[in-house]
């Protein structure tokens, strides 16, 4: 089956910043992404889990975005403007996609 090269970007970010990340992606013309829930984690600021949370301030979400390589920079710039001062992890990987006309 024919596939096409693309990039898979994964952004783990604080829940209160999700709306802002979505807006920044939108402005940068990145309109395809999927948001996954996060149960807990660990990082420099310690270990946390959803059970110990009250309200949305402490949680995180993972945003997965598949896009063509040439649009990667626009996405990274938009993402960086949001995560800059905030907690967050951004990774980029290579992948192949089916139905490339979607991206």
């Amino acid at each position, binding site marked *: 089956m024919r596939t096409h090269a693309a990039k898979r970007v994964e952004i783990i970010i*604080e829940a209160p910043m999700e709306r802002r990340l979505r807006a920044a992606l939108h402005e940068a013309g990145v309109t395809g992404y999927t948001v996954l829930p996060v149960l807990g984690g660990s990082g420099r600021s310690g270990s*946390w889990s959803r059970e110990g949370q009250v309200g949305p*301030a402490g949680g995180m979400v993972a945003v997965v975005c598949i896009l063509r390589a040439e649009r990667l920079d626009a996405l990274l710039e938009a993402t960086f403007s949001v995560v800059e001062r905030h907690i967050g992890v951004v990774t980029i990987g290579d992948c192949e996609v089916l139905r490339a006309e979607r991206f």
Partner: protein
Amino acid sequence: MGTFLDLAAANLLSPIVLSFALGLAAALARSDLSVPEAAAKALSLYLLFAIGFKGGAGVAAHGLDATLLLALGAGVVLSAGLPFIAFALLRGMTRLDTVNAGAVAGHYGSISIVTFVAASSVLTSRGMEPEGFMVAVAAIMEAPAILAALWLVMRRGGTGRVETGLWREILLNGSIVLLLGAFVIGWVTGPAGLAEIDSFIVAPFKGVLCLFLLDMGLIAGRNLRACRSVMTPGLLAFGLVMPVVGSLAGLIAGLVLGLSAGGVVLMMTLAASASYIAVPAAMRVALPEANPSIYLTLSLGITFPFNLTLGIPLYLAAARLATGG
């Protein structure tokens, strides 16, 4: 003093406080007991809806006068003013930098609605029905403190960012909207509306509050375990002193307004309590450099338990003394 000790003992042995203690103990002992997030959120929606509705129905029953407006004004002043006191205390008692001190101060101007609910429930048990409009005062006190805190930080060169959209998020946060909305519904439908749904929002109220406080105890305990390291004696002292200072401001406001004894207790409780939902979310956005462990542990791990156990009976005793009620 006897009154306070009696009240405190009765309060400490109530199912509500014991449920909180159970959650706290379970978390400190590292039990895996937990309330699912969705269930905890549902319980809090219930409590907000019920307390708002009952407040509104109370206003419908007893009518309304200028006191409401004055009380709202007092709420705004307390919410915006207390962060300055808190900031000064923090700079005196602890070694927090401007950003962290400002962030903490904002929490103490704002309020904890669960503390308010717990105090209301104690008042109801004792037949000291407070003014229904205190619900609206609670709602109006959530936001001004955030503005005050950001102003405190920025005045000192901090880079607090009050981004477009943050204000809408703060003013239209779910808790405020539900509390005020239910208040309006209660007011519009009045005692007849209350009668239609009171076997849902009145009869089981205290039991639901027990389960909710069980979860609050679990969260406070997990928070204390995770954040021990940030606690200093100075911070601990602040977390116990500040609610008492705040409650005094609330007492004065309540007496000046001529509230009922129950109303004075609620005003004291609001001033004494610290936010752990709305303000932390706003601070993550506006002051990301502030350490959430500090403000969450103070408001959730220190001040909330203090108010729930000793604070409320203290404010009750003080209000009775002061109003002769």
